[in-house]
């Protein structure tokens, strides 16, 4: 608490030192407005407005809005963003003005020297560190499996981000577990981002505009998870004309329709996908697979409308579902999110966004017939209301502040018998509720030209209400046998309240025009926890709130980085180091029963962890030839009493080395090629040290959690894109994408495990006999996978 008091004092001191003078009186005026794509009217997030004479500027926020305060005068204003032609205007600013800008998409035939690929020195001058922005245009340049652009797979290739292997959408940021990532889709949290257990993510590339990934130095407006924030924004839709896209891929197809509601006033977009694995399964010779149903579908929709010069509303939603049926067994899960947002510009300095947010993750599984027929459903639901303000205090200070209130409900499971002679009775697990409140304020302050600060505080309160709580003898939660009483609270009865104060700090010092040093610190709280004890969460993994027995997880992270640009800012380099402390980190007892367990605290173990590492990234993102190279060196260890005899052990997602490299070359207007290569050293696994026989079954003996490692992982992917010829009167275009996944057919480890040895059956050469002898085997997933996708645009 002493450190937090010091942090508060420092922040209050900084704010009190801030010049609260009247800028108008001091001859200062503001220019604000929106920056949009000239072709379709989409807001551009992160575009830079740069005032050449003052060597200062601003970037657009998540709604494409910017605001700068300047002394009265005439300025050369440079507007730039990645993939767009920069524009430079001389503007006389003698009073507060609104100035919108429209950027044209960069043409590949343009001479590379004349094209500004992105905010020229953003890498060096932006105070935010440990953040990556992904756009769909960038993601299209990376070869993808089955031709499906996937944000999560792109995130897994960023420095500082680990994955546990192919076939999983889980990702691990700077040593944090996969449930420590806050994934927001138009501000609505997505609790399960995977389709088909992780082969695809739930994010349809056609509906996505961009994604910002914060790995450290997390701004104060974000909270609720320890390790990262993935802020995904969907497209607004073409406000200029009706247009559409349809893609046919190897395993899924999708279609998008977008257009103006009233031109330049509002637009809509609807995008839908469906996979057709099940069609291919019918061709299998295996009877069980032939009778299996397996598919997913999802739909994104968004409306936006400009009510006036100062007001705009957005309504966006996502609905997706996975369906699996095999014989008598069925399993499905899905997410639904809705965001209703209203953005209002009070004046050139004050911007507000108000959002009402709904998110639901649900699953069901069961058997449809027989004496074991049952259905089991569970869900987590969230409704929240938030307001965010951005206030340009003066030329040197931009304040951000806001408030959020959120109601969460957790239904861990309801079992319903599904046949007249079912052996099951109806069982309803107690509903759990929680209320989470947050207040934040932060300021980005320019101390002097070279030194910028970003400091903020986030205050959170978490209440566990309307729940069922067990009372344990001597507060000993190690066993259900210790339960002595049960307390049932109604919705208005709070069982436990937690408070959290989360200081955030960022510093940037420009060494010179081409290089800077940045540092950050953040303290974060996480009040909800995913009940997963596998490296990658199962599709039916549930969440639980903090309670009187499960304290919030907390984390502290410091990061230091050096940023340098080369060759007129065309090549960006960054080197970051970090150290992260994890407290109250959660793991589970050996053989824990996490499903349909109302006393989940009896299975939870708590401890500490730490992670440290270095991340190097070099990239060229302008011109015809672009490339990225990233290397991560990191260590992640956990120490949890009850696991590994209380000794430290490597987290399941610990990888010592990660390398990701990608190249993309636009040969001409029609042809382009891309390739990527990735390498990850082996991840920890647990293998047995011995065995014994019990009831004619071999029982394995383990002596160390995660004491061994899988073989290394590496893979090369290739893609070739062919665009249709551009003809003056043609109103449509098309594109072929040919890709090869795992070009050299590397057998990358999915798992290494112990199983009973299979030997040939002497009576039937086509069959094997399972013996009781054990063998250690490696299983791999995807061999070389060619794919083709055809996309049609109108």
């Amino acid at each position, binding site marked *: 608490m002493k450190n937090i008091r010091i942090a508060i004092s420092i922040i209050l001191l900084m704010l009190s030192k801030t010049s609260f003078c009247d800028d108008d009186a001091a001859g200062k005026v503001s220019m604000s407005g929106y920056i949009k794509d000239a072709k379709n009217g989409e807001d551009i997030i992160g575009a830079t407005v740069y005032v050449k004479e003052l060597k200062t500027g601003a970037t657009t926020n998540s709604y494409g809005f910017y605001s700068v305060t300047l002394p009265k005068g005439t300025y050369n204003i440079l507007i730039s963003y990645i993939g767009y032609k920069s524009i430079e205007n001389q503007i006389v600013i003698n009073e507060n003005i609104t100035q919108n800008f429209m950027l044209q998409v960069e043409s590949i035939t343009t001479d590379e020297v004349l094209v500004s690929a992105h905010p020229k020195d953003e890498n060096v001058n932006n105070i935010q560190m440990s953040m990556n922005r992904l756009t769909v245009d960038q993601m299209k340049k990376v070869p993808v499996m089955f031709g499906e652009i996937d944000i999560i797979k792109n995130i897994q290739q960023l420095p500082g981000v680990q994955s546990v292997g192919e*076939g*999983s959408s*889980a990702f691990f940021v700077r040593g944090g577990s996969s449930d420590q990532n806050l994934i927001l889709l138009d501000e609505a949290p997505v609790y399960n981002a995977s389709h088909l*257990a992780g082969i695809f993510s739930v994010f349809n590339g056609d509906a996505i505009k961009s994604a910002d990934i914060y790995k450290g130095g997390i701004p104060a407006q974000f909270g609720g998870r320890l390790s990262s924030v993935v802020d995904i924004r969907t497209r607004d839709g073409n406000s200029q004309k009706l247009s559409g896209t349809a893609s046919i891929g190897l395993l899924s197809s999708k279609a998008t329709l977008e257009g103006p509601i009233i031109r330049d006033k509002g637009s809509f977009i609807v995008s839908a996908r469906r996979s057709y694995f099940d069609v291919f399964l019918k061709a299998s010779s295996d009877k069980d*697979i032939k009778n*299996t149903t*397996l598919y997913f579908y999802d739909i994104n929709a968004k409306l936006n409308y400009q009510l006036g010069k100062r007001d705009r509303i957005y309504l966006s939603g996502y609905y997706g579902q996975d369906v699996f049926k*095999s014989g008598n*067994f069925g*399993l499905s899960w899905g997410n639904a999110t809705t965001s209703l947002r209203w953005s209002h510009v009070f004046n050139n300095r004050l911007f507000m966004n108000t959002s009402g947010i709904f998110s639901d993750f649900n699953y069901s*599984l069961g058997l449809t017939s027989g*004496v074991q027929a049952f259905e089991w459903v569970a869900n987590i639901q969230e409704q929240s209301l938030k307001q965010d303000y951005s206030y340009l205090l003066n030329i040197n200070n931009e304040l951000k502040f806001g408030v959020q209130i959120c109601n969460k409900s957790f239904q861990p499971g309801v079992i319903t*018998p599904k046949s007249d*002679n079912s*052996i*099951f*009775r109806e069982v309803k697990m107690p509903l759990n509720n929680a209320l989470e409140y947050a207040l934040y304020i932060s300021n980005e302050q320019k101390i002097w030209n070279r030194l910028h600060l970003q400091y903020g505080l986030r205050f959170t309160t978490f209440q566990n209400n309307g729940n069922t709580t067990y009372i344990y003898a001597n507060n000993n939660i190690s066993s259900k046998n210790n339960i002595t009483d049960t307390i049932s609270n109604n919705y208005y009865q709070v069982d436990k309240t937690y408070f959290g104060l989360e200081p955030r700090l960022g510093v940037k010092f420009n060494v010179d025009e081409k290089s800077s040093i940045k540092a950050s610190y953040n303290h974060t709280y996480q009040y909800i926890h995913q009940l997963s*004890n*596998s490296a*990658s969460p*199962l*599709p039916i993994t549930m969440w639980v709130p903090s309670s009187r027995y499960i304290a919030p997880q907390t984390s502290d992270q410091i990061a230091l980085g050096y940023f340098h640009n080369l060759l007129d800012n065309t090549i960006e380099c960054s080197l970051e180091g970090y150290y992260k402390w994890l407290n109250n980190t959660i793991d589970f007892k*050996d*053989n824990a029963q996490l*499903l349909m367990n109302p006393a989940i605290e009896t299975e939870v173990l708590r401890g500490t962890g730490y992670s440290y590492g270095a991340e190097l990234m070099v990239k060229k993102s302008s011109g015809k030839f672009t490339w990225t190279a990233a290397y991560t060196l990191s260590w992640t260890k956990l120490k949890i009493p009850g696991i590994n005899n209380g000794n430290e052990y490597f987290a*399941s997602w610990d990888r010592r080395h990660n390398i990701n490299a990608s190249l993309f070359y636009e040969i001409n207007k029609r042809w382009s090629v891309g390739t990527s290569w990735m390498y990850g050293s082996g991840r920890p696994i*647990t*293998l*047995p*040290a*011995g*065995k*014994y*026989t*019990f*009831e004619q*079954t071999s*029982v*394995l*003996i383990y*002596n*160390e*959690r*995660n*004491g061994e490692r899988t073989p290394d992982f590496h893979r090369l992917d290739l893609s070739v894109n062919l665009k249709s010829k551009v003809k003056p009167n043609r109103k449509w275009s098309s594109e072929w994408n040919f890709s090869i996944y795992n070009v050299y057919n590397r*057998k990358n480890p*999915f*798992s*290494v*495990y*112990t*199983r*009973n040895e299979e030997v040939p059956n002497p009576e039937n050469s086509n069959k094997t006999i399972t013996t009781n*002898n*054990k*063998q*250690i*085997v490696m*299983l*791999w997933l995807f061999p070389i996978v060619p794919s083709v996708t055809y996309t049609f645009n109108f």
Partner: protein
Amino acid sequence: MKASYIIIFISTIILMSTCGKPVDITPEYNLDKDNHKIPKIAFEGKITNLIDSNCVKVKRTVSIHSNENIYIENAEIIISDNHGNIEQLQYVGNGRYQCLTTVGISDGRVYTMTAKVEGKTYTANLVMPAKPLPIDSVVIVPDENNEGKFKAIVFAMVHTQFREYYLFQNFVNGKLKNEPDDLLYASNENLNGKIPGFTLVEKLNSGDKFTYKYYTITKEVFDYYNGINDQVNSDGGVFSTPPANVVGNIPDAAGIIQGMYLYTDSLIVP
């Protein structure tokens, strides 16, 4: 059993996308790596209401690549209860120590096994579970999923007023069915009390001798079988729980001494 449904799903995903068969890799460890950390002796014991079933087997733990059973032949094993009964078990070969007289079996009685093995004493305590409701019937009926075959189904009632745990062991022609899918254990936690025709074994042939053993077991034994189930059904993949030791009731040793109430019967498939 619920976990196995998830395994079906994950297996299908894997099966669809896996190319080629698993390959052997060479582990960089063996039993001797940290030999002092793992138990050297394993017990497998039952105390039931049927005297013939009461025995304790003692053997060494071995490397996972070893296929031999190393039996302990000179152990001293004593079973006693909290009513003053005591008996030293007799060695009958293959690591098996047989209980020759009953020590008095009844619900809730507390038993203690004391074993002296190679100079070290191992102790286990266990409680005899409650007597279950008797099985109504086990019948042989045609197997609708396998033409020309039969299956055994059970009709029974189970208690619902208090928690009970069950184990079925099925033998066909004297051989225990012990494939991963054959492991049948359950609790009555979510049951309505009626078992109206639950399948015990499929693919029986005409003339087969089918024997079932129906036990009520303690929570401790239920957890033990649950641990075995987790082990045998794990594929070690990213969706699997971390492999873990199966915890018994004998400190410093592997295995478990089970207290079980047992019904058994045999049928000939018509």
